[in-house]
């Protein structure tokens, strides 16, 4: 189904409110919506709620043969799924431009920034490596899918435990979850995406746009950062031309947001680990 444009009233109201420094959901320009993380009973299943946007990430693994030119490298595969459940504008079996952009951006943020140690996924060089697959399902679309998906993907990877393996000579034994405690993946750093939207020819900038704000925005930019203040990716596909100091200012805002979100992810993971420990006793 074609996307339905917002009415003139909504457009004008959002723009007028931004001029007054207000947003339609009562947030300030640089506020994220409430972030909620909930874990499934399996390792590596995470549901992220960012306001009304909902994303589910599920990590799975399998043992496969590596490429001959990279015999010690494991695989990290992302798969995004945008079903009509999230928004009636999505269709089954047809990728929208938005979906391509979102999945490319997540790959860029996670893979190219080397957040996951793929060398550590090697079991026998040239023979067997782990392939880690992250399935990202979009459940409800209320804007800013990228940030929600990124948080979901990295949290799921951190939450995931793969089966333990022992190698004796040529023999490889994969231990079931009952035999040995599964092991976590080694993650170098936590990349977090922060999306900005621009209005009034760049005069007004907001963080974490909702669906309506995304429809009205003139341009956007996504910065991927980690807590060490390292920029992992910066993506700006068209929209408005920007001044350099504006980009610098937005990275500064992004650093603050990334610190907050990372702390929240870690707190949620710790709380879940504690819950698992008490339930096991």
């Amino acid at each position, binding site marked *: 189904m074609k996307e*339905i*444009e*917002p*009415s*003139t*009233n*909504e*457009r*004008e*109201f959002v723009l*007028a*409110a931004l001029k*007054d420094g*207000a*947003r*339609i*959901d*009562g947030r300030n320009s640089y506020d994220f919506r409430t972030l909620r993380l909930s874990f499934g009973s399996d390792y590596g299943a995470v549901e992220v709620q960012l306001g009304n946007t909902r994303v589910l990430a599920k990590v799975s693994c399998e043992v496969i043969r590596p490429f001959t030119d990279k015999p010690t490298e494991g695989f990290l595969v992302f798969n995004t799924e945008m079903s009509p459940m999230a928004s009636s504008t999505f269709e089954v079996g047809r990728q929208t431009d938005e979906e391509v952009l979102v999945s490319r951006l997540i790959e860029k943020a996670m893979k190219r920034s080397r957040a996951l140690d793929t060398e550590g996924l090697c079991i026998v060089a040239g023979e067997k490596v782990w392939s880690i697959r992250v399935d990202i399902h979009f459940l409800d679309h209320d804007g800013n899918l990228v940030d929600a998906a990124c948080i979901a993907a990295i949290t799921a990877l951190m939450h995931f435990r793969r089966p333990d393996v022992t190698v004796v000579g040529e023999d490889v034994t994969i231990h079931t979850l009952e035999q040995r405690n599964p092991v976590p993946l080694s993650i170098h750093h936590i990349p977090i995406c922060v999306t900005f939207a621009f209005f009034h020819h760049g005069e007004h900038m907001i963080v974490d746009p909702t669906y309506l704000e995304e429809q009205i925005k003139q341009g956007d930019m996504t910065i991927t950062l980690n807590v060490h203040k390292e920029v992992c990716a910066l993506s700006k596909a068209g929209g408005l031309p920007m001044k350099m100091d504006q980009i610098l200012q937005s990275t500064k805002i992004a650093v603050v947001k990334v610190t907050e979100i990372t702390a929240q992810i870690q707190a949620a993971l710790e709380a879940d680990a504690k819950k698992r420990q008490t339930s096991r006793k």
Partner: protein
Amino acid sequence: MASINPSEDQDQQSTEPRIVLPGDELPPTETGLVEDAATLAPTIKLGPGLQPMDDDTIAAVKAGVLKHASVGNRWWIESNQRRYVSVAGENVIGVVLGKTVEHYKLDIGTAQPALLGVLAFEGATKRNKPNHNVGDLLYCRISLANKDMEAELECFNPTTGKADGYGELKSGFVIKTSLGLARRLLDPKSLILRLLGKHIPFETAIGMNGKVWINSGSTKHTILICNAIRNSEYLNERECSTMVKSLVDKL
């Protein structure tokens, strides 16, 4: 609907609410379909969610709470959903999507866009008719709703031929709520609108399609009202008044 005696309307509510699921059948004795139930009205009126089956029984086609009003022996199911299905006679808010020589095409939240004749306004003639552009908001009434056709709309009261508040909604803001919340807001006893009205003067138009238009003196007030309405959906009376109070205090 306005002439219902409230005491009679509530006779069902004193007993335990009965939850029905799609496919549940209503016992004929209860609905007065059987002729020997002389005390009950001989005819019944079915509302949303109920459908007569081939074998003269009545079955629920929606999940919700079964409701009954003894006046006119009316039965219906009260349920909540997000997708609007057009019903003739209901008032809705639509966005103009396009215009042809004879019709405006409006999005009213249904699967297909609805049609509004260019002459379906108060006093409109071929020579003198209002002009609306793509993106305009219109408050209209559904004049025809067949399930296999696009719904047809009109912007005047068919009994008087007057505009009666139908027509373009200028400025302000629209929020999308669930259909259940929109229905409750239309209740004259609706608490949240009265609570907000005590603090802030505002205009509102509520569409049965879950679209609520709000306009007030300033953007800050409109935002507050919109959020208060959205938050009120699952709050009881006491929680509503504390929520409104805390929002107003923050201004």
